[in-house]
């Protein structure tokens, strides 16, 4: 019966297709982290004083924090002074006035990644903010969005143009002292995306940010802040890639979402950072803090993620359900292969009455990888009538990998109900035999079975991403049956 395993293992050998490096003149800080570096970073971005103060406060706090070690991952100690905290393509002007001013090499890079930035070759109704290493290089469809009143820009621009919104909400969901990596990000974040959707506005198109790490020995520390004002709606997509390098690179992002009364935010991620080679060399350390606050009544935040990349992932997109009747959702597919390690899941913190949440997590482990779901469902004393449903399924491909489930459930309200279920399975010999007996290629069979396993999550993705996600899994499983 070991035959299926062997076939599946062979199918899993895959190649990373976004591994190229863009040759571009860049301005890069020397490695190291201190108050002077933070001062220079803030100055280069022409930030107001409040921002510098905020960063320095976060930095001083961070110095006293310990790197977390509770996750089911292992990685060599990171030397935070060996990382460069700023790298940006050199530009002729201070800011490109239009897309025509953007370096053609950069435009080519994004085209190669399948993200055309020219509006005439627009990505079917999706506005894109492209973040290259430490800076946002282009944001498309700014004008039609502005007409609707939607602010969609880089966070650097927002700090200058909308300081009052930034000051009010930055750190309101993920405070600088929240955790080690969030603290680091607060001190040194260099760019990211800012979205504000005003009252009653349904954002006319999908918004997206495409993150690209290019330079060597740099970290990417982006910061995303999305605010959905009363009765508004926005769907936001995020994609990530990086070149293949032998050294590990750090990505420590923070994403904060704020939903006011009756507002809805749908946040989708297809994460495909370079995972390292088949021997576990290189790859991105993806240590990310993502959290949404449903402040308003009837608000809703929905996280959907498809995670196939990174060497090590530490990530728990969460919802704080404060507003009455607010809703949190988490749909996740995490695939690990070779020596990848993922410790990912979510937190649903129910504080308000009649809040509800759904967690659907699908973990797929292959090769020698380790894939853990870690989740917290918490009902505070005020969460009368709150509900949670959790379904965690693991699929193991081959006998060298590992799959774990660590769900924490804490309830302090007698009127709250939580239901949690978890299962573990493998692609069975019988399933493979059935498919092959019907003339289907073993490779196609594995891909079909794995896609079927993930179906509940894929149906939550916006159309463009669902197709991409399905393909991504196929690529990830390529060669898994011989």
């Amino acid at each position: 019966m070991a035959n299926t395993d062997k076939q599946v293992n062979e199918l899993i050998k895959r190649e990373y297709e976004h591994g190229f490096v863009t040759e571009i003149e860049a301005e890069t800080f020397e490695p190291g982290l201190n108050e002077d570096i933070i001062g220079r970073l803030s100055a280069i971005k022409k930030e107001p004083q409040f921002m510098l103060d905020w960063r320095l406060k976060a930095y001083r706090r961070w110095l006293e924090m310990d790197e977390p070690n509770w996750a089911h991952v292992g990685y060599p100690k990171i030397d935070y002074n060996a990382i460069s905290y700023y790298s940006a393509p050199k530009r002729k002007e201070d800011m490109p006035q239009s897309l025509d001013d953007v370096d053609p090499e950069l435009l080519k890079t994004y085209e190669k990644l399948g993200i055309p930035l020219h509006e005439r070759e627009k990505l079917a109704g999706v506005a894109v903010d492209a973040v290259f290493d430490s800076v946002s290089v282009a944001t498309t469809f700014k004008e039609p969005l502005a007409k609707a009143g939607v602010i969609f820009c880089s966070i650097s621009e927002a700090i200058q143009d909308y300081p009052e919104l930034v000051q009010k909400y930055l750190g309101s969901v993920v405070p600088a002292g929240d955790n080690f990596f969030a603290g680091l990000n607060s001190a040194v974040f260099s760019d990211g995306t800012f979205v504000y959707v005003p009252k009653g506005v349904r954002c006319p198109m999908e918004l997206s940010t495409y993150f690209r790490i290019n330079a060597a020995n740099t970290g990417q520390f982006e910061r995303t802040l999305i605010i959905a004002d009363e009765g508004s709606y926005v769907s936001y997509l995020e994609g990530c890639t990086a070149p293949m390098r032998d050294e590990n690179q750090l990505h420590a992002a923070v994403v904060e979402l704020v939903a006011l009364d009756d507002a809805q935010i749908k946040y989708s991620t297809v994460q495909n950072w370079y995972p390292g080679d088949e021997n576990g060399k290189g790859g991105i350390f993806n240590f990310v803090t993502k959290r949404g606050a449903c402040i308003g009544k009837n608000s809703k935040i929905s996280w959907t993620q498809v995670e196939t990349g990174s060497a090590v992932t530490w990530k728990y997109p969460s919802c704080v359900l404060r507003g009455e009747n607010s809703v949190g959702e988490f749909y996740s597919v995490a695939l690990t292969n070779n020596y990848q390690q993922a410790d990912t899941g979510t937190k649903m913190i129910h504080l308000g009455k009649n809040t509800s949440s759904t967690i659907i997590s699908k973990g797929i482990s292959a090769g020698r990888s380790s894939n853990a779901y870690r989740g917290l469902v918490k009902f505070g004393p005020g969460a009368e009538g709150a509900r949670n449903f959790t379904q965690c399924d693991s699929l193991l491909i081959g006998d060298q990998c590992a799959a774990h489930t660590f769900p924490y459930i804490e309830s302090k309200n007698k009127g709250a109900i939580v239901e949690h279920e978890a299962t573990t399975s493998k692609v069975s010999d019988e399933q493979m035999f059935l498919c092959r007996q019907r003339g289907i290629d073993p490779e196609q069979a594995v891909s079909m079975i794995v896609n079927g396993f993930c179906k509940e999550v894929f149906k939550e993705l916006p159309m463009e991403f669902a197709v991409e996600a399905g393909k991504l899994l196929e690529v990830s499983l390529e060669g898994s049956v011989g």
Partner: protein
Amino acid sequence: MLSIRNLHAAVDGKEILKGIDLEIKPGEVHAIMGPNGSGKSTLSAVLAGNEAYEVTEGDILLDGENLLEKETEERARDGIFLAFQYPVEIPGVSNLQFLRTAVNAMRVHRGLDELSAVDFMKLAKETTKQVDLDPAFLKRGVNEGFSGGEKKRNEILQALLLEPRLAILDETDSGLDIDALKVVADGVNALRSPERAILMVTHYQRLLNHIVPDFVHVLAGGRIVKSGGRELALELEERGYGWLGIKDSDEVEAG
């Protein structure tokens, strides 16, 4: 079309088939009968290429080509179809997607164009009627939550769509009530054609009332101990396997 010569096969090192010889010509319907544990299901699994079974001796030729050298999926594309005794579930994969992938794999192999989603949907819906399945079954996961009878009809549906040269039906009658048995038998009879052969593996002869075989073989202890025409099955029904000097565990228990 199919020649089985001195076939020996083992599972987990234990020999189950101990020298099978069988010739099947196009258009023929053969029935293999035998008590439990006689090796009936092993024979169907070996023909389809299940890797859990090891062929230790002998040959299987399909149109003169050595079948044993081929992978399961290659045999399928050459026209070998196995209707499973216990069809497995594949959660999340819709029946429609599964069938279309299989049919197109077959079509490509036969040098035909792949069917578009729309054309295939039409064909599949048409065929569901033939086996009395609600077209809604096409949207459900492969065998997911199907009843025993629905699973069996789904197997026949696949046979009709894949148009095999040799259809092997492994205990297709087991677990079916009389109405479902008729539906399945009608489906199988619709498969009968001068180019196609059918090999039925069954414990009881009741299926043979609905699908009349040209030849009946009795398998016991890993060998074919008697071959004959339709009348052999009737005789078996009347006299049991004991008449041939074979112990049938079921009959012993029942008695």
